[in-house]
Each structure stands twice: as C-alpha cells, then as structure tokens.
C-alpha cells in the first residue's frame, strides 16, 4: 500500500471519531504543553538568578564562616568587626575588606511601613559592590566609629516609605529606634523579590546595637582581576583559620555561586520536565487503550481488507500510523498551547519564561515515540487477525 494512501486511511479513521480522537489526544496535549511550559519556566528562573548573581560583579569574593553550601543554614559567626582591619593588613591594602551584618526588619516612616533586608555595612561597601548613590551620601567612617543612627535607602524602600516627599533628612524607625536618611541608592533593577533595590544600609556598629549582636556575618573583597579571586579568597581564609584555630571558613566567588545555582535549577527543570513526561506516558496508555477498542470495533473491516489482499504489514502500518498521527497531532497542539502559555506567563507575571527549542523538539519527538510505543501492540494485534475469523465476527 502506498504511503499517501496509508495517511489518508488513518486520517479518515481519526476524523470519523472526532470527539474520541480529541479526547484521546488530550493526555498527550497536556503532557507536551506541560513539558514546554515547565522547561520554559525553569530556564527563565535560571536566567533571572544568573543575571542577579552576575550583577554582584565577577571580581568579588565573599568570606564566610563554616563550610559554605547553598541550601544549608550558615554557621554561627564568631567573626568580629576588628577582623576587617586584620584582613586589610594581611592583604596589604587599606580599606579593602567590606563588612556585612544582615537582618530583616520592619521600617516605619509616619504611617508607611516597609519590610526590608537591613545591612550593617562599612563605608567601603559602595566601592566594593559598585553601588552609586542617586542622592545624598553613603555611611562614613565617622558614622561607623560613633554608631550613628543614619540610613541609606534603596529606591524600592524609599518609594514605599516616602511616596510623596524627598526622604533625605527624614526619620525612619526600626524596632522603635530612629534613623535619619542620609542617602538614596540608584536603581539597579532585578526581579523575584531579590533586587538590591529593596535593601537599606546602616553603619555596621549601629546594626550590631539594633540587632543585639556583637559579631558580623562575613566579609567581601574586590580582587583586582577575576583571575585573582581564588588567590585572594585563599589568603583570607588562611588568615582567619590562623586566628580562629579549629574553625572553618570558606571563600565564595560569583562563579561558584553561579555554578551551584545553575546546577540546582537545571536539576529542578529536569525534575519538572520528568513529572510532565509522566502525564505523556499516561496519555500514551490512553492511546493504547483506544486503539485496542478501535481494533475490536473494526475487526470486520480488517477481515475484509485482508480478504481483498491486505497483508499483515499493511494492516499493522494502518493502525500504527493512526496511533502515531493521534499522538503527533496531540503533540503539535500541546506545543502550541505550551508556547502560548509561556508567552502569556512572561507577559503577565514577573516570571520570565524562556522557551527552549530543545524542549519543543524533544516534546514532539517524545509524542511521536509514544504513538509508536503504545500503538504497536494494538496494531500488531490487528495485523495478526485471521481473515476468516475476522469476517465472521458481528
């Protein structure tokens, strides 16, 4: 039998049972759409986080206590503010080491409130992290020395607390303590609620008092070139280990964070795609089931075709093609829906879904394969029917 004829026969059979064909396809449609959308979301999340981390700057190395791993709670820090001077001496660069002590607090200005990541910092943070100000000034050495209650706001915090007024010189209160606004950061952008624009900075000494702590969270240093990052990190870790015998410290660079986050998100994407793939399998079982019903219903037709000269492989390919057509049409519809959903998602939610062409190709390939895999058993059954027996059935 000619190939075009096989296609025509398979298509006619599907069209004759339009509703049934559509319902059978649905499993594959949903499965394929889910694969495309979930992979797009996973890809979008990865891109977002990557750009976020890249925004930190590729020369920066963080030193934190304990063995650092993403997903574990950081070790309790014994690091002191004075360690910054020690590390400056180790590096032979005055003012190279930036200090960080972070906590989340409720900010209040009049009736407006804002929940922000409050970072206790040293005056060199603006240089290390490249955070230009839009207005006013940053925390100064004198502010640190006297633990002055001053605050620099990110644009998001400023907009929430002072929607209609210039914040400079005004008061913000945290846990009942008043801070005077001395500066505003320029907007950096970002999404996912992790934008640096939501941060507020205060002198680290004021932060220690406010949070009731006497330690600090960690240090950050900007190496001269990306190639120096590892060497600088190692030097700082060695120096701290010497001072705090028996304690562990870790130097983390942007590349490492990117690598770890990338791995986690790729894994997440794969897991999501695999879950979606399961629904494709379930769809395949549905196809198998309907094809078996179809073979039974058309036993007489099969007997007749054989009597007229159809060979086993003619009948087999007719039913196999029907199953494959069912799943691949389902696949195409699913891909269309998946693309549509991804585009809609990235247009109307902060999640930037990034369509991956490989997921589209894969999803289509899998839906064809599902048709072959689940169609072959009913098709073989049809091909093997004895024409005499088939013609006798009612």
């Amino acid at each position: 039998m000619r190939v075009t004829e096989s296609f025509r026969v398979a298509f006619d059979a599907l069209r004759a049972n339009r509703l049934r064909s559509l319902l059978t396809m649905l499993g594959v449609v949903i499965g394929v759409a889910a694969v495309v959308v979930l992979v797009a979301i996973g890809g979008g999340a990865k891109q977002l986080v990557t750009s976020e981390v890249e925004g930190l700057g590729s020369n920066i190395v963080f030193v934190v206590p304990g063995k650092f791993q993403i997903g574990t709670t950081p070790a309790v820090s014994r690091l002191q503010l004075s360690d910054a001077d020690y590390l400056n001496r180790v590096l032979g660069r005055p003012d190279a080491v930036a200090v960080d002590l972070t906590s989340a607090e409720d900010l209040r200005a009049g009736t407006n409130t804002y929940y922000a990541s409050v970072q206790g910092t040293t005056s060199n943070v603006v240089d290390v992290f490249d955070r230009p100000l839009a207005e006013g000034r940053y925390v100064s050495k004198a502010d640190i020395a006297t633990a002055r209650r001053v605050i620099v706001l990110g644009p998001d915090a400023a907009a929430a607390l002072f929607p209609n007024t210039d914040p400079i010189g005004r008061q913000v209160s945290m846990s009942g303590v008043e801070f005077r606004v001395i500066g505003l950061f320029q907007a950096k952008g970002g999404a996912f609620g992790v934008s640096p624009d939501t941060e507020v900075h205060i002198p680290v000494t004021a932060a220690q008092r406010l949070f009731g702590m006497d330690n600090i969270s960690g240090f950050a240093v900007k190496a001269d070139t990306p190639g120096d990052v590892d060497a600088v990190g190692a030097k700082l870790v060695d120096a701290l280990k010497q001072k705090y015998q028996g304690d562990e410290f870790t130097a983390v660079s942007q590349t490492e964070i990117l690598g770890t986050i990338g791995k986690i998100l790729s894994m997440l994407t794969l897991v999501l795609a695999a879950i979606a793939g399961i629904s494709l399998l379930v769809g395949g079982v549905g196809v198998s089931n309907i094809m078996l019903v179809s073979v039974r219903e058309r036993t007489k037709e099969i007997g007749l075709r054989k009597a007229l000269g159809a060979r086993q492989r003619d009948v087999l390919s007719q039913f196999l093609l029907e199953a494959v057509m069912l799943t691949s049409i389902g696949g195409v519809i699913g891909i269309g829906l998946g693309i549509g959903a991804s585009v809609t998602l990235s247009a109307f939610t902060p999640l930037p879904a990034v369509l991956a062409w490989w997921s589209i190709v894969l999803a289509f390939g899998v839906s064809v394969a599902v048709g072959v895999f689940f169609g072959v058993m009913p098709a073989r059954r049809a091909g093997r029917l004895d024409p005499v027996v088939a013609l006798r059935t009612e």
Partner: protein
Amino acid sequence: MAEIEAVDVTRSYRMDGVSVDALRGVSLTIEEGDYAAIIGPSGSGKSTLMHLLGCLDRPTTGTLLVGGRDVGTLDDSELAELRNQTIGFVFQSFQLLARTTALDNVALPLVYRGVRRAERRKRAAEALDAVNLGHRVGHKPTQMSGGEQQRVAIARALVGEPSVLLADEPTGNLDTVNGDEVMGILERLNKERGVAVVLVTHEADIAARARRIIRVRDGLIEAVAEAPEPS
C-alpha cells in the same frame, strides 16, 4: 490449466482440545470460465470450502493449487497477494465500508496492489458501470438498497480482474427481484468476461442456473451434477 485444483483437502478446527472436521477430504477442480454452485445443509462445510478456494485459509491436509501455486507452501503475504490477484469475493452481508463511497469501496482491492489513486478511481468507475451503478459513485452504502449494495460488492470483486469470483450466498439477504438482478450480473460476467463463478446457495432455483451443482454433506462432496446444456 485449471484455475483451482483441490486434491483430498481436509480442514479441521481445534477447539478446547476437541477436533472439528469441517472438511474431510474434498477433491474439486474449478476450470477457467467455470460456473458452479455449491449446495448442502447448514454446517456441511460450504463456507469452509469457499475460504479455502479463496486462499483465506490453508488446508489441514491435502493439496490446493490456486492459479497454479500450492497454497500450503505460501506464507501469509504471498497468500494475500495471490488472492488480491486471482480471487474476487462476494459476501452474503455485502461487507462494504460504511463511511466510504461506492467508488472508494470498489477501488479498495487496487489499494493493496499499489495502483495510483487516479487510476484506481477510473477503474472503479468502470467496474460500477459494469454493474449498472455508474450513477451512484458518490453514494455511501447506507444510502443504497441491499441489491445496490451487493452490486457495489460485485464491482469491487470485479475491479482487479480476477479469474475467479467466489460468492457465499450472494442473494441470501436479498428479495427475489434483487436476487435475480445480482445473479444476472454474475452470469453476464461469467459469459462475457470468462470469469469463473463459484457460488454457495440454499435456493434450488438459483443453484439450477449453474453449469455444475456440487452437493456437500458432512464435509464431503456427496454428488456433482452437470446441468444439461441450455438449449
């Protein structure tokens, strides 16, 4: 050369360990342009014999030659090809594809011969003309009477230009008028085209029109009666 030659052919079915002997040793020759009627009581093995003659089945023992080829030595695809080339079937219950037009029903045997669509349709239209249904090409079986449906089935049996037409009770579902018309067409094909016609029937007057009457009983040929040459 005889179209079909059966020598001591048997066919038994195995059911739950019990063997049913549907044919118990039948020898029969269908000559070129033959016209034979097979009669006999229900369950005597008429249909079983027709299935064997039509290469839908293989004998359990004995030799069956169709178109000069030994059916017992052919595999399934060769058998399918042989029946596509040499046999045309007409069934009691017409066996037309319900959602398919008369034209495409008739063209079906040519599909399995790899004939192009345009050529198939041309030849199917000619076959429908030959059974006086040239005006019904686009109609579906549900839009036709029983007699018309059986004529479509005859056109389908005819379209591949087989040398033998096998008809198992072709008038069994038809009234006398339609039955007569169907018989008339079969006889015309036999006379004008030299197609051998073998039919199974329960009706004595239909059997009487054939040149030979083969009486089957209990899986054996009981008698063969040659009709007197029509004067």
